[in-house]
């Protein structure tokens, strides 16, 4: 039951995070910070070709080097039967170590373990691989042509009727449709149809992937690594290596950023296998170059989209085709792009078709609201164009078409209580929206949507003998979730958050939990914590009842104290600490454990305002001001909610202006480092104003919606729309780098 307008003592406050001191002093241990006695160093041999058949691998010369203890190839992995679930382990196994073919430059081919990192590197140079180089394809449209080189000779496009006769790089065609497109466009007074492209971008977390694995004579495996889900690591490793889940224990390290990029495994199975082969612990740390060459980018894309509106601003129809680069294996987020791009609007007639296309690049991984920023870039730009053509304020146009409670999402269901309108109204009233602009300056607006997720979570709340409390989370804390979980436990129990110590437990000490992702931890694991705390309160009431000799139904719990109900005699209230201290005499330790599959996740909407100044001679864009408005449901720790929003905005600005993975004509990445993969630096950005709209999610005890992903959705179009306002030039190809903008400006003037 929602607590309505109740004043909270903990929820909504901004305490210092419990894990903070370890992080500002350097004591916190991340993936690469572990070492074990006798540990070996692993290294990965990677393909020098974007597409080639592997004819043979000879590791004998590497094994001759003193200090080299093991070399593995895909021949050492069990063969996975073809599978087709949310995670395709056939693909995963072949991504971890190439089998038969390498599918991108940087694809892992072999791994070694040696007594030092330098010896491991030297050993890699001595592993001889014979390749038959094959033609490769990088561009999504080229990959779709009938004569394109095939990555998977036995892949036939799914979702076509009749079933295709020839194999294709198109893994799947997907469609969302409703209404009558022809009729919808016929109703429109204005129609815009445009093409958009975006390039592959990288999650760019600062901590590279790292792992230490140790195996024992009993076959038990212990893995230390940073990931967005150590249960995921356990399950993936067990499946790929053919081990029982109970054979693997994964101990989560602190995670140095993920943004979706640490939702799969690259190194962990290799480290386990090398440890099994060598009988020694093995550590592998990716270099930054390996990160860029071989870990999950977000897809490059091409979109053709057409949007129609009546003179009053009503959107009548939308048709779009979205072509996404999946990378070496199927699984781009193109469907999510189709589902999200129009979610903020009530468009009755639509057809959104997505194509998931394999190209010779690393397999894409999730990146913050996967797919949504790309689809929204197209739609939010078109809406800006329509607003101008119709002479309607862009916020008003959005308000006119805004999705609301009861309106039908493009992907089918009706929305329950959502706060999109509230974000628009708040944005319209924000002072930045009226701040005067000078020459070469412009303002852009865009909105965005993300589903948010529930899924499986576990939690334990353990009361210590002195009345302090342990909150045990199963989710790696990627951005402050521990303190948020502690706040909810403190609120329920009625004690100070400083008395609550949140920890992230390993796979053997807490029940299974899905990933840290989908903006789900504070929502779903939060629900588990709240339920576990309520179980604890039940026990606290029972113990108080025993102490007082009254019926438990007569004991209330209020602000950290057990109180006897009226007419149950004179008893002083018992504090949580007092009950805890006597717990051994009243029935033993007090604790609550909960596992649940959280229902009731509620979508998030955001509206952003971006002001830019363009240097028309050089094409450089300065972000002058930025305001992000978002319906967050309820901010448990407002500072970390703001931080999520600011971080998402910064990533979106980077995507809009300068980030792109540049591949040469041989499919070799030209910018595998932070020097030329240009994520925003501190001097690139202004302060990012955040406005938290709180339209409570009625199914969460505190109204939480989840906040991490929506903020990366609007910035791409917000920046592009602002640049248009400043220059009169529509930029529909990302990134809007200075050379591209100058070309476009020069084109405008000469045209």
């Amino acid at each position, binding site marked *: 039951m929602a607590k309505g307008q109740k004043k909270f003592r903990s929820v909504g406050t*901004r305490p*210092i*995070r419990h*894990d*903070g*001191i370890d*992080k*500002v*002093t*350097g*004591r*916190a*241990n*991340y993936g*690469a*910070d572990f*070492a074990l006695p006798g540990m070996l160093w692993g290294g990965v041999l990677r393909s020098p070709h974007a597409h080639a058949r592997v004819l043979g691998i000879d590791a004998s010369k590497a094994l001759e080097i003193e200090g080299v203890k093991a070399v593995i190839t895909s021949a050492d992995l069990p063969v996975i039967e073809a599978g087709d679930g949310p995670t395709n382990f056939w693909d995963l196994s072949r991504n971890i170590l190439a089998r038969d073919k390498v599918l991108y430059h940087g694809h892992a081919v072999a791994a070694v373990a040696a007594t030092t990192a*330098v010896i491991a590197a030297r050993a890699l140079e001595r592993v001889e691989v014979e390749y038959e180089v094959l033609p490769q394809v990088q561009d999504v449209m080229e990959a779709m042509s009938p004569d394109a080189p095939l990555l998977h000779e036995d892949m036939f496009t799914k979702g076509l009727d009749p079933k295709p006769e020839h194999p294709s790089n198109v893994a799947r065609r997907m469609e969302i449709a409703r209404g009558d497109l022809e009729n919808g466009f016929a109703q429109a007074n204005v129609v815009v149809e445009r093409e958009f492209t975006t390039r592959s971008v990288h*999650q*760019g*977390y*600062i*901590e*590279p992937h790292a792992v230490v694995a140790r195996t024992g004579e009993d076959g038990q495996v212990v893995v230390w690594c940073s990931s967005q889900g150590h249960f995921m690591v356990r399950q993936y490793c067990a499946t790929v290596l053919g081990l029982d889940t109970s054979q693997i224990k994964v101990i989560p390290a*602190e*995670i*140095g*950023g*993920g*943004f979706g990029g640490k939702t799969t495994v690259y190194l962990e199975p290799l480290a386990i296998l090398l440890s099994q082969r060598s009988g020694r612990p093995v550590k592998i*740390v990716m*270099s*930054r170059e390996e990160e860029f060459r071989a870990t999950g980018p977000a897809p490059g894309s091409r979109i053709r989209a057409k949007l129609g509106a009546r003179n009053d601003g009503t959107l009548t129809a939308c048709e779009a085709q979205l072509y996404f680069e999946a990378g070496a294996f199927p699984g781009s987020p193109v469907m999510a792009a189709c589902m999200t791009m129009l979610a903020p609007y009530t468009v009755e007639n639509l057809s959104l078709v997505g194509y998931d296309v394999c190209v010779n690049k690393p397999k894409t991984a999730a990146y913050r609201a996967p797919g949504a920023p790309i689809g929204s870039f197209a739609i939010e730009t078109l809406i800006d164009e329509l607003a101008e053509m119709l002479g309607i304020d862009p916020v008003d146009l959005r308000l006119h078409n805004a999705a609301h409670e009861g309106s039908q999402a493009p992907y089918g269901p009706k929305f329950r209580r959502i706060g999109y309108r509230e974000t628009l109204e708040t944005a319209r009233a924000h002072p930045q929206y009226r701040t005067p602009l000078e020459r070469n300056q412009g303002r852009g607006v865009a909105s965005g949507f993300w589903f948010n997720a529930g899924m499986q979570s576990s939690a334990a709340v353990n009361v210590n003998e002195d009345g302090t409390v342990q909150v045990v989370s199963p989710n790696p804390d*990627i*951005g*402050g979730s521990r303190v948020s979980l502690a706040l909810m436990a403190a609120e329920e129990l009625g004690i100070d958050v400083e008395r609550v110590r949140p920890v992230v437990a390993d796979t053997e000490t807490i029940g299974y939990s899905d990933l840290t992702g989908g903006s789900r931890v504070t929502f779903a694991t939060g629900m588990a914590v709240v339920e576990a705390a309520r179980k604890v309160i039940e026990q606290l009431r029972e113990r108080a009842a025993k102490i007082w000799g009254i019926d438990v139904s007569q004991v209330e719990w209020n602000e950290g104290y057990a109180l006897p109900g009226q007419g149950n005699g004179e008893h002083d209230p018992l504090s949580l600490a007092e009950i805890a201290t006597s717990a051994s005499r009243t029935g033993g330790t007090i604790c609550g454990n909960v596992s649940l599959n959280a229902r009731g996740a509620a979508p998030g909407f955001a509206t952003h305002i971006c002001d830019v100044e363009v240097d028309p001679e050089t094409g450089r864009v300065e972000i002058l001001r930025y305001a992000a408005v978002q319906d967050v449901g309820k901010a448990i*720790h407002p*500072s*970390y909610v*703001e*931080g*999520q929003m*600011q*971080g*998402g*905005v*910064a*990533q979106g600005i980077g995507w809009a202006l300068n980030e792109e993975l540049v591949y040469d004509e041989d499919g070799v990445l030209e910018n595998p*480092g*932070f*020097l030329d993969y240009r*994520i*925003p*630096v*501190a*001097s690139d*950005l202004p*302060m*990012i104003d955040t406005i938290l709209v709180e339209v409570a999610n009625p199914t969460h005890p505190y109204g939480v919606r989840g906040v991490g992903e929506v903020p990366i959705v609007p910035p791409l179009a917000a920046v592009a729309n602002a640049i248009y306002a400043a220059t009169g030039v529509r930029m529909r190809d990302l990134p809007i780098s200075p050379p591209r903008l100058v070309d476009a400006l020069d084109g405008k003037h000469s045209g």
Partner: protein
Amino acid sequence: MDPKTHVHTHINGEPVEFLSEAYRSLLEILRDELMLTGTKEGCTTGDCGACSVTLDGRLVCSCLVLAVEAEGRRVGTVEGIARGETLHPVQQKLLEHAALQCGVCTPGIVVAATSLLERNPDPTEREVRYWLAGNLCRCTGYDKIIRAVLDAASELRGASPNVLE
């Protein structure tokens, strides 16, 4: 085995000796030999700042310093910033402002920001942003980091908080 040099240096004020091959970076020795893992590795090319330390008081990337170059010099790492149980104001303000999410860039930010405030006790927002441009943070959008450093500066000066530009 590659030849090694016996290096005598001071780390966080303490005399330290170690052996290193000529090609190994100070970062590798700090982390892998001396177990000072507070200094983080993000890129090994000087582009991310996670490995920031001071060398004879000057801010540098330890990935771009050879370990043997530490001979006769003074190295300062994040582990040496707090005084016993007392956090440096930069550390305290980063916590109060919730200016870290994943926290892996934080040690580098702490070292860089303290180095700035030693030289410039009253920096503008712009000066803080440019000084920290070599410290990549992918989580925060920098907003809270900049506010925390400005706040720490005013606390160190004993002044009222700086008004942002």
